[in-house]
């Protein structure tokens, strides 16, 4: 394991050198965002190298932090460059976008619900985003946001059950798994409705 770890560390360090060197040379802000996404991969690789169940449990928060920051920073970018108007170029259509979304989104969302927790939330969100992408969106922004807010509160409740009333661990697991699924899925699928424009 020692050799594997040291080799892995060497590879990631080399990657950091290359990636951050490119970033030093970069002057364009959007390119910088893309490169920070690359940096995110390197951070996760460092955690993955630990190779235990704990590492796996740490990757999940790491991932969510990464996507959260990306979301916030990209929105700041749009605000600062004043790129307010949705794209107006002619819509792009391929056949698969007519037939696939229904069934694929359904599979992903159903699978996500079975998985539950973060993983389920992320998988289901991909399905939802894909659906919004191809079929257009009806703005249910406020409702979804409220749902996700409540899901967050439920999860905090589950946390306190674990800490204060550990005998009821079973309810806590169920609440936590369900609430995080709903929360992550709701938040991330909302991104799908934020694309804007009527062309889709």
């Amino acid at each position, binding site marked *: 394991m020692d050799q594997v770890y040291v080799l892995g560390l060497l590879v990631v360090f080399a990657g950091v050198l290359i990636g951050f060197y490119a970033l030093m040379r970069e002057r364009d802000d959007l390119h910088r*965002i893309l490169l920070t996404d690359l*940096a995110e991969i390197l951070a996760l690789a*460092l955690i993955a190298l630990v190779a235990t169940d704990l590492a796996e449990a740490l990757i999940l928060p790491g991932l969510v932090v990464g996507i959260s*920051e990306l979301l916030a920073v990209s929105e*700041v970018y749009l605000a*600062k460059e004043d790129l307010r108007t949705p794209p107006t170029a002619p819509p792009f259509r391929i056949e698969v976008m007519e037939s696939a979304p229904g069934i694929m989104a359904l599979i992903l969302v159903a699978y996500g619900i079975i998985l539950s927790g973060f993983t389920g939330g992320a998988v289901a969100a991909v399905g939802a985003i894909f659906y919004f992408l191809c079929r257009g969106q009806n703005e249910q922004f406020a409702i979804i946001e409220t749902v996700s807010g409540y899901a967050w509160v439920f999860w905090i409740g589950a946390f306190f059950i*674990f800490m204060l009333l550990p005998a009821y661990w079973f309810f806590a697991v169920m609440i936590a798994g369900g609430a995080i699924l709903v929360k992550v899925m709701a938040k991330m699928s909302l991104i799908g409705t934020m694309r804007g424009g009527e062309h889709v």
Partner: protein
Amino acid sequence: MFNLPVTNIGGSELFVLEFGDIVNYFSVYTAALFAFALIFTALAIVSRPEKMVDIAFGGDAYYTKEIDPGLLRFQRFMAIACGLATLGAVVSGDVFNFTLFVSMVGITNIGIVAAYKNKHVLNAAFQYGIVAMLATVPLFGGAAIVLATTGTLSLWELYTAAVAVPLIAKIFLVLGVMGEGMAPFYIAKAEITRAQGAPFILMVHVSSLLVFLRVVEIVISM
């Protein structure tokens, strides 16, 4: 049950708060930081922002800027979230938990300044955001190296003399906190400071200084 292994850096242990594997502690040092964060969070909750005075050149006229209530509410929310994250970070007894709190500090800081419409301030906020995102590499990387090389994340174990933390992990942790809190990179912060809303802007500085002070304690004690 828990005895702080190192009392000659942050003072003696006062109080322990257990959350499963994550055991937070209040030593004299962390309790002082906690109290300070608490004071400024409270200030962010109760105080109204100042009215910035702009002087029109070429005459005696001056006017004060009023703050948009929506912006005010949003900034106050962000400042409180930032305060809570700081409170968590300064008493955390676990390296990874600490890094998570620090990245929350980073993201709330972006939020506080990103609310302004001033392009100059937004641009600074954006550059700051990029650095905060980059900082996750050394931050989480540092925690991961600590875990891989010592087999534990708990500061209680890491502070004992038997556990040796590699230099690179310490450097990474400090670099990570520097990036999230912008500790020595004050240039973007100076631009940010030009914006209105003193109690909230102040929270940016409070949080970054406190997490930096905390990481110094962690790195020296390890």
